[in-house]
């Protein structure tokens, strides 16, 4: 059940990407935070690592998003997998 603080970078000012930001805000697990210039802070609080990754992929693929970086992630005590 990870909680992550992410930074979304758009290819131009955040103000020019209202549609993508709306789509991010529509994700129930996401809280949209501060923005400045081309960057937007979001927090993702998801039930599973799978959902967390799905959200990551969905945000990364939105129009205008050129980078998604991690500021902080906290996770619980689930063991990881084996291939």
């Amino acid at each position, binding site marked *: 059940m990870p909680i992550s603080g992410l930074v979304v970078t758009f290819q131009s000012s955040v103000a020019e990407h209202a549609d993508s930001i709306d789509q991010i805000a529509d994700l129930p697990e996401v809280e949209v935070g501060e923005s400045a210039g081309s960057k937007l802070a979001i927090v993702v609080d998801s039930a599973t690592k799978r959902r967390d990754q799905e959200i990551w992929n969905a945000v990364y693929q939105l129009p205008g998003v050129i980078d998604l970086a991690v500021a902080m992630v906290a996770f619980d005590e689930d*063991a990881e997998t084996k291939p």
Partner: protein
Amino acid sequence: MMDTKRRNFLKSAAMAAAGSMVAGNMSLPVVQADQGVSDLPDGDGLSWNKAPCRFCGTGCHVQVGVEDGRVVAIAGDKAADVNKGLLCVKGYHVGGILYGKDRLTQPLLRKDGRLTEIEWDEAIEIIAKRIFDSPETFAFYGSGQWTIPEGYAAQKFMKGGLSNNHIDPNARLCMASAVTGFLATYGVDEPAGCYQDLDECDVLILWGNNPAEMHPVLFSRVTDRRSRGETVRIIDIGTRRTRTTDAANDYLEMKPHGDVAISLGIMHLLIENDNYDKSFVEKHCNFRGDEADTPTLSGEPISEDEFRKRIAKYTPERVEELSGVPADEIRMLADLFADRDIRITSLWCMGMNQHTMGTAINSLVHGVHLLSGHFGRPGDAPTSLTGQPSACGTVREVGTLSHALPGGRVIANPEHREQCEGFWNVRDGSINEVPGYHTVEMFERFTKPTAEGGDITTMLVQVTNPGQTLPNLNALFNDKKGLEDKFLIVSDVYPTATTALADLILPAAMWVEKNGMFGNSERRTQQWFKMVDPPGEARDDCWMTIAIARKLFEMGHEGMKDKDGDFIFAVKDDDGQEIPIWEFDRYYDTNVDKHLFEEYRLFTRMKHKNLAPYEEYVKARGLRWPVVEQEDGSWRETRFRFSGFDDPFVEEGQEFDFYHSTSNDGRAQIWFHEYQPPPEVPDDEYPMWLCTGRVLEHWHTGTMTRRLAPLNRAMPTAYVEMHLEDAKAANIRQGEVVTIESRRGVCDLPVWIDGRGRPPRGTVFVPFFDESKLINNVTLEAYDPFSKQPDYKKCAVRVVKKSAAKVSS
């Protein structure tokens, strides 16, 4: 499961961490321990400490959150100049790599074909006995993931203790050609510039390099500039389109080995158009070419006229023929280099290094920058990147290569050997004067019957996975007979393709389960402390080396004693009593890393790679060498080597000084190398090029990242990327499993048509992270004559529908 209060607490902490990145809090100074954790939560027993990321050579710093002896949170370190608080998707998951379900926790000995648990004492005894009985047929294979103290201990054990130079790292497979390129050009290894070049360049040229996926945080330093309104022109020169291409202004698609022709073409035009930087060349450069009979890394001096004569034939049209890049694009590149008002940074990694002309192409790209004077100002730099977190720190600086000694010294030089014996206080002549076997040769000799000249019989592998990464694996490991006397020891954290071949498996501690130091791609030495215990009986690799050495000492091996009769790794307490660091429960009675590092530090002054005392690295988020003490007792790092404005070893008033010049005159060498075709090219039988490489989600052979469920799910299997028209012509459908065949072997893979990477017609690409699909059964073992680095980027294959394939892998 976290309770609601804790979730809310962590959510507000995560928002604060992300928000502070957005609010422009991005340029914090480097050396303040508290700033990295200022926004992070510290209640509820959660404590934070710094460490470099375990994955790539970018060397981002993370803050590791530990609670109840377990890593529970990761944050980008805001006090770190490299990543300024941010991490890529692999950094996000770095904490999880400790917790795969199948960690190795007990030594395992293969008896009658079955692995059986044994105790450490027995394991150490078995290894020591094999070495004692035949020290000269023992080899030690390590990696650019060894910490600096681990590599240094291995180096001293082998070369100082056993008088045996058969030690080499996996970095031979990834950056050896960058080393020989730097040595041939400047007489000393590693980039002159640093990551600041990416913040200041006007043009970024990527030579066969895909940083958007392989060094994402570095690449985002450039794309961030654009999103702030700055203009940076990105030129991607490659053999297939990647995510980097998506961000590039220009994509120049070249044929394999086209980079050699392109660099010659740029230099030809700079000379032809008389717009090279005459003043820079006259003051700071010589010209050099290969000797006619037996080329060496030193080459021979040639005149500028001779250089002009040799390069005259590399006209844009001829280069177009050789490289496939249109002549006008070659002119465009040459015009950019002719413009001294802009700043140009070149970046490269495996594309130029895994190359049978690796040394040549590295030297030529340095030559383009030197000839045009695009060197030594922030933003004007030829810079190689590394894939591993300490390929520079441990391999290149500690010198864990079969021909090298710490601090840029070499085995072949008697004076260097003598100095090294002095630092180690070992008997005169301890260091064998004959260089050891490089990686490919070492494994060939280990996998060849002893009676047929296979004179390596025991091998210890630490922190790497050669059973998956060596080229032409079939020839090395499959269907081998007469190897009953060979013994493979593998230390690792998880079962791998190499542990599957091992006679003895040693469970290792990893990352923050031990103390460590890394050195990243920009000469930055980084330090961290152990934060959690390793699982079960897993132990530090450095301890393993010291425990084996101690056992040999007790068995009476003379090499394990120094000149005073003391153990070569002796550490004494304040009362002069030896601390038994070879007993694992006493290993952390002292900081062994610190003892080893302070000894190693003596070497670093020999070639202007000066390092600061250990305690300075405890305070810093890494320091870039040379690090020199100031009058006030502080320690100053160096961003731009050889440049008078920053390098403390350039005499005041001088603009540049290449003070390790191979021509002993303070000048760098501009090399001419003739273009040569690749060692194997497609033909009627094997009509396609195969290129191999990595993917964003997985790091190298995937032994860590494939255990992280989200990453494994995002990229569960290797695949073959194919062009749509090639697939259509062969009647191959999306997702269909095909067989990739070469003259050496086969590999079955699902097809990804026009996927993430888009190869041109006639080329396929396969990533190497998946141990269930070993593409290195197919790749070629041909290597660069100077660096001995194999070429994994080009060989001839055919793609066969499964129903038509001869054999299955």
